[in-house]
């Protein structure tokens, strides 16, 4: 089954992330309620609930775990969430040192390494989990997801079928359905999606993929019914908007398609497929000139896409090379796909933590996409490591200025000048500050 439009590689990643996000939300709750911290953390990391009345080996290990191990594990989880993968791995190692029998630790390592797209080391980590606890929930789901991301649905399916602990969650069942659909087993896919929606009738991803299954079968009425339900549950999701637009286009509703695809293209200016299909809709409507303009834009984006694909192909067999990730991130940035570019540079940095310039680039990208909080966090980490970097002070000042905190901005830029008195941009930025902020 082809990917749901816009739910291709990047969205697939997003999709898996969204599953993780559900777990992470639960864990956030756990952090707020300290008495249940250890148990909740365990549930979150595993992504699942308890397996009955009798204690599993992992549950027993949790009870007996050294509190220091728990603290390391919590910090590792936090670093992982913030994208500081090297720190997360180090903290996980420390946790393992204090609690070698705790399967939660290699499980977290598996997740971190998966986020770094280091699938073989991740697999080794998950296998270590199974040695400690053969029934640990979520291991086979995650192993299956890795296989799915590598384009091996049959292998993914075989792994999914071994999953027990997370086997009735909507996220699991949706993935199961996708693997079945990819292998042409439409009836099994349909059953999996139906069970996913029975487990969680508010899961938009399940609706979208169910719609895709109907589309592949040529039943556009049902496809649109399900896709629209998914979109209604997540109305601001531009990828879902795109999917509905494409289905309308294939179903001959050119005007409806144009409206949806225009919204998707305008909201995602780097989205090649949205532009391509919008151009097709316009051509179908007889608006050839406008269609040609949009298709020309799509053509430009396609050039970016080819460059991105080139790096993806190289990374498929060389994912341990940080420079390839940097090049990949650069290509993504050129295409305007800033979120994915951040991910690529984050992986590059994780593979080569001493490459501090990458931290600065990641922070700049975060700033570019408007995530000032995360950018600020990165700049602060950089300056803790080496406070004599004028460019980082300059960027930190920019974050403050964007937030309207002109005093802090002035202070940062003045610090930049302290380390580089001739720093032209720092001087220029200072001169552009509102008068009150320039003259304390």
């Amino acid at each position: 089954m082809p990917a749901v439009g816009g739910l291709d590689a990047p969205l697939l990643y997003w999709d898996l992330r969204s599953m993780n996000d559900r777990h992470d939300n639960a864990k956030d709750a756990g952090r707020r309620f300290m008495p249940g911290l250890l148990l909740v953390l365990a549930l979150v990391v595993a992504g699942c609930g308890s397996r009955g009345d009798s204690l599993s080996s992992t549950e027993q290990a949790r009870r007996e775990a050294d509190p220091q191990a728990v603290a390391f594990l919590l910090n590792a989880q936090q670093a992982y969430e913030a994208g500081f993968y090297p720190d997360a791995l180090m903290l996980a190692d420390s946790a393992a040192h204090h609690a070698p029998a705790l399967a939660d630790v290699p499980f977290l390592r598996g997740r971190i390494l998966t986020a770094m797209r280091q699938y073989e080391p991740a697999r080794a980590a998950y296998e270590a989990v199974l040695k400690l606890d053969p029934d640990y929930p979520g291991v086979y789901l995650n192993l299956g997801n890795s296989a799915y991301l590598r384009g091996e649905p049959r292998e993914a399916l075989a792994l999914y079928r071994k999953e027990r602990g997370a086997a009735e969650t909507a996220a699991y069942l949706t993935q199961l359905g996708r693997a079945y659909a990819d292998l042409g087993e439409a009836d099994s896919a349909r059953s999996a999606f139906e069970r996913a929606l029975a487990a969680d009738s508010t899961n938009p991803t399940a609706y979208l993929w169910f719609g895709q299954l109907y589309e592949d079968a040529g039943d556009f009425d049902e496809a649109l019914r399900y896709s629209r339900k998914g979109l209604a549950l997540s109305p601001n999701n531009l990828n879902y908007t795109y999917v509905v637009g494409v289905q309308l286009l294939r179903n001959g509703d050119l005007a409806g398609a144009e409206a949806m695809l225009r919204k998707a293209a305008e909201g995602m200016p780097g989205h090649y497929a949205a532009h391509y299909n919008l151009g097709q809709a316009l051509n179908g409507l007889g608006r050839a000139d406008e269609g040609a303009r949009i298709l020309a834009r799509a053509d430009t984006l396609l050039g970016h896409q080819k460059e991105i694909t080139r790096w993806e192909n190289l990374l498929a067999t060389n994912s341990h090379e940080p420079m390839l990730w940097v090049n990949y991130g650069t290509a993504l940035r050129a295409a305007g796909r800033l979120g994915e570019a951040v991910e690529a540079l984050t992986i590059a940095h994780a593979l080569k933590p001493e490459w501090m310039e990458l931290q600065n680039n990641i922070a700049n990208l975060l700033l570019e996409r408007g995530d000032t909080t995360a950018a600020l966090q990165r700049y602060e980490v950089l300056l803790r490591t080496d406070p004599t970097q004028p460019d980082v002070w300059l960027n930190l000042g920019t974050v403050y200025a964007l937030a309207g905190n002109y005093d802090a901005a002035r202070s940062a830029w003045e610090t930049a000048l302290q380390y580089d008195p001739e720093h032209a941009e720092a001087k220029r930025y200072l001169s552009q500050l509102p008068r009150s902020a320039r003259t304390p």
Partner: protein
Amino acid sequence: MHLSSFSSVALVAVVMIGCGGASPPATPPLPPLLAFSDVAQRAGLGDFRHENGGEGRFWFPEQMGAGGGFVDYDGDGWEDVVLVGGGRLSPTGPGAVAALRLFRNDRDGLFTEVTNEVGLAAVRAYGTGLAAADYDNDGDQDLYLTALGENLLFRNDPDSLGSGARIFVEVGQQAGVAGPAAAWGSSALFFDADRDGWLDLYVAGYAAWSLATDIDCFRTGGEADYCPPATYGSDASYFYRNNGDGTFTEQTARAGLAGSPGKSLAVAEWDFNEDGWPDFVVVNDGEPDLLYLNDGDGTFTEQGVKSGIALGEHGEARAGMGVDIGVVDTTGRPSIFVGNFSSEMIGVYRQERGGWFVDRAAASRIGQPSLSTLAFGVLLFDADLDTDLDLYVANGHVYLDPLDGAAYRQPPHLFINAGDGTFTDTADSIGGVFQQPMVARAVAAADYDRDGDVDLLVTENDGPVHLLRNDSRGGGVLRVRLEGRAGNRDALGAHVTALTATARQTRHLRTGSGYLSQSEKVLTFGLDAAPQVDTLLVRWPNGDMERYTGLPAGHEVHLVEGEGLVTRTALPVNRAVAHVAR
């Protein structure tokens, strides 16, 4: 042999009425609605095996071939079989592989190999695709073999003894269509691009590969495997204009056919804008597919992306392999069928008003069943002679252990048309040879036994050939053999419409289409229960129209441009009738 459904019903009715309560006399059972038998072995094609030149080094070209098809090389009205033999890729490879092997139709269901007799036995080349046409307008079929290396053109001549036998003389370089020595031709198309009565030639170029530039590729686990096409650059495609004197002039750039995306594997012709000038589609592997519209002044304009046929649903370039074009529903508008890689749907692009195409892969019900197979040859033909075109798909993977879960050896698809452009894959329910996994590549069509229905020839990579005799019950049929006079002798580019009381069918006479293959040039119109074609409209390549009426079912008619109906032969043809017809 098939019976029309009309006759079958009458036969059954008579039996029921005449027999009363007595035991019914033994009657031969009706043939199944759809049935094909692989008769390659018993027909004399059993000792053929394509040689892909593999030496365990996973060389890129190994998995792509090979072609073959039906050509009536001796002009007796019975389609002969030509097969591309393959060859060696390195000096240490197999050396005694004939580039082409020719099997003469003995008119009794059997074939006799005549490769040596026609002068082809000593020809060596790593051949890929086959095209056949009367490029010199002398009344016989010449052969064009695309290859890794120079392409070969075999002119069909009478032998020097005047015995009536045929001999093929290789004239590729002399005629100017050999192409570069370091090239890789795939599918070829003979067509009269400028409508001057002489067939021009388009040769699709695949990838820039040689032993010297070969790259070792590995799977994620470190095992050696074939490289993906993206590993290599594109090879150029070429357009040769026929000078009318047995030679051609290469005019690719001048015709506006240079510089487009490449890795081309298949090409098919159609007059999409119905301006009388032949247009064509080029299918590319991993690059956007191309639609060349003929400007009528010796040049073409590429409209693939603009028209909507170039890319998949999400604007992605797919791994296109084979192509065919036909009218498959009641709209009268053509649909382009493109065979793609596994995990990609077969493309089904129907032309809409304004020249725009919509992808009906899913709506046609072809898309989903095709996701798990890698489609090479695609071929439209009326399998059951019920008035609409069905689709045969030759499947087989290029990776021995595909990551996406597909199999290396795959059974074919036979998509039967409901008449409205929606299809049902019946291969599994037919069973037999349709459940047989193959590493199939080319598929070609012809009524080789002249019983009225369309049989298939399917090649396998590094394997045997299959001759699928059509044993379906089928409906009535009219077969139309055209011969040009003012235009090219083969009448390539002729557009023929058959009208019955209940159906309107359109065919376009052409070479190319499919994948590396050559089908017969006789047009088959399935008539179901209609007793005749009420009106047959022929638009000859030069635009002249001719109209024939009241052509009865169960016949093959030979129409000559400007001369009308020359012969009408009842089907099935026996040897004596065929002799008289010639």
